[in-house]
């Protein structure tokens, strides 16, 4: 399929999507995404919205963990910061195109503070530090009643554009998906710049990177800031999507969910992020469907749905780590390689 695609100029070589097949495919994908809500029911559209939000958050975590090598177990807490920021400003009448960036910036600010120790500690120690941050921030969400509404949670007013209230899933879809697309393309672009390449150098060996003239503190903090910015925007969208949020949503489980998504999808790749986010959102839904099917004959099956989801979640993580450490991305690549010369034989 890719036969006859030669890179004859620097511009062509540096293009974000160098081949015609890729560009055509993306155009088709964009068209499908644009008309999807017209052909799907509310359940599927809602699911697509969640996939979009998960994509943004997972992309942020992949920038931190997959590209820069800074393990974070506190991603959900950064999302919480974004969500509460957006809620606070939205309640004071600011429109979503102001609150979304603000949510991202506030989360990025907290991210920088949390990232400060990352110059001294890394690996497991950083994982434990971010884990501690996760618990401390959720404590703040629970106790700071005047801003977060405490355990009762917070209400988020509807987002609206030119007087059109985005009050159902179909309308939210047209907010979430473009934002997700923008941020994913932005993420892909980031790693063609000096900053992104510095991140990758730090991941591969931070001391070597420093010797090569990369200011570790600046770039590690930048990675934390960018990753948390993504989380903040995702959290804000989550708030608009659910219209109400409690601290119980931003738990350690959610942080682990995103780590699982990028590991299952593929560390250090935006495509892997998308594959992982889609896969990890769909698996619990498929399980729910499967259990509902079985429950026709064994009604007690529904009671063990949530434990089964936990078991499958754990098995997926372990299975991918042992058998396919590069994730779904590697499977995708293998499949694609088969079709490189198609329809000719290799």
């Amino acid at each position, binding site marked *: 399929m890719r036969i006859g695609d030669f890179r004859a100029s620097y511009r062509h070589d540096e293009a974000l999507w160098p081949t015609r097949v890729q560009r055509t495919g993306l155009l088709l994908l964009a068209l499908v995404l644009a008309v999807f809500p017209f052909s799907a029911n509310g359940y599927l559209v809602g699911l697509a919205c969640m996939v979009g939000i998960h994509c943004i958050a997972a992309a942020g975590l992949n920038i931190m*963990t997959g590209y820069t*090598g800074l*393990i974070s177990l506190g991603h959900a807490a950064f999302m919480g910061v974004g969500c509460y920021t957006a809620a606070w400003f939205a309640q004071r009448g600011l429109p979503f195109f102001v609150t979304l960036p603000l949510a991202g910036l506030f989360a990025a600010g907290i991210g920088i503070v949390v990232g400060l*120790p990352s110059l*001294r*500690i890394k*690996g*497991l*120690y950083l*994982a*434990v*530090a971010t*884990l*501690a*941050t996760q*618990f*401390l921030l959720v*404590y703040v969400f629970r*106790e700071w009643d005047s801003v977060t509404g405490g355990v009762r949670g917070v209400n988020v007013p509807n987002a609206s554009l030119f007087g059109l209230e985005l009050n159902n899933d179909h309308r939210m879809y047209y907010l979430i998906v473009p934002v997700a697309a923008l941020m994913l393309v932005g993420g892909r672009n980031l790693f063609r710049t000096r900053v992104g390449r510095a991140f990758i150098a730090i991941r591969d*060996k931070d*001391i*070597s990177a420093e*010797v090569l003239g990369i200011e570790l503190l600046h770039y590690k903090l930048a990675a934390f800031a960018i990753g948390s910015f993504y989380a903040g925007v995702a959290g804000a969208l989550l708030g608009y999507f659910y219209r109400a949020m409690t601290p119980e949503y931003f738990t*350690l489980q959610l942080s*682990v969910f995103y*780590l*699982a998504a990028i*590991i299952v999808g593929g*560390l250090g790749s935006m495509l892997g992020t998308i594959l992982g986010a889609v896969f990890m959102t769909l698996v619990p839904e498929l399980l729910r469907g499967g259990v509902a099917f079985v429950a026709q004959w064994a009604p007690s099956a529904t009671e*063990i749905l*949530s*434990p*089964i*989801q*936990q*078991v*499958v*979640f*754990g*098995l*997926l*993580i*372990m299975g991918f*780590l*042992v058998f396919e*450490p590069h994730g779904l991305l590697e499977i995708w690549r293998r499949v694609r390689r088969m079709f490189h010369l198609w329809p000719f034989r290799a």
Partner: protein
Amino acid sequence: MSAGFDWIALTEFAAIGLLSGGLLALIALGFVLIYKGTGVINFAMGEFMMLGAYFFYTANVLWGLPTWLALALTLAAVALAAALIERALLRPLSGQPVISVLMATIGLASALHGGVDAIWGGNNYEMPALLPRKPFTPGDILIPGQIVWSFALAAVVIAAFTLYFRFSKTGIAMRAAASDPLTAYVLGIDVRRTQALTWIFAGMVGAVAGIVVASMTSLSPALGGAALGVLAVIILGGLDSIAGAIVAGLIVGLIESLTAGYLGGKVRDIVPYAIVLVILLIRPYGLFGTRQIERL
């Protein structure tokens, strides 16, 4: 020294805190064994505790076996489970990046948690009280008996392990493999076997701790989350130091008890994590941990 300050309450909080620190040190020992032996923080430690407690409950209460037999069966079952886990999950991942191994133990935690929930259900079970409840009353203060006895039990287990590592041949081999796997391998120590043994020992330590914690409170899948707070102990003590785990266990127990007494339970729950952050900022390798020096 202000008048009317309740010194008795302070002494009581402090005594209870120090004594409950013994159990923290025991759980921390499980973490430290695995970190020393294999360089992994086992995020499934709490699930080992949970597994041990559920096995014991099944053998002792549901099957009606005597306590000593139930305990022996539980330890054997947990040891077997730990060996299987080490063989099937951790060994294929040895040499992989930190995040892979970290996530593997988190995935393991999720699978074990869900499995226990699916088999035994999410209900609270009442465990038989293993330790005498009769309170101790030295002077004017009152200390619940279970806390004192749990401290004694933890001390015995920790002392036994310390002696084992100090004097037994296998224990010395394990220490050698932990300090330098390659050299140990060259000298004829079966490093794979010592690593498997490490997981088995840690699983058994976790099971004992789990049974004791469950018998002092109650048994539910929530027990699995209890071990995360112990991260404060191992970070404070230094990830690879058993002595550090003991000292830090007592310190963290004391701090937790004092905050619970004077600031309330909600604050107590996050105190371990505040301790973690402060230590990582000031002294990342903890009180007794090995300072890591990196070279290119």
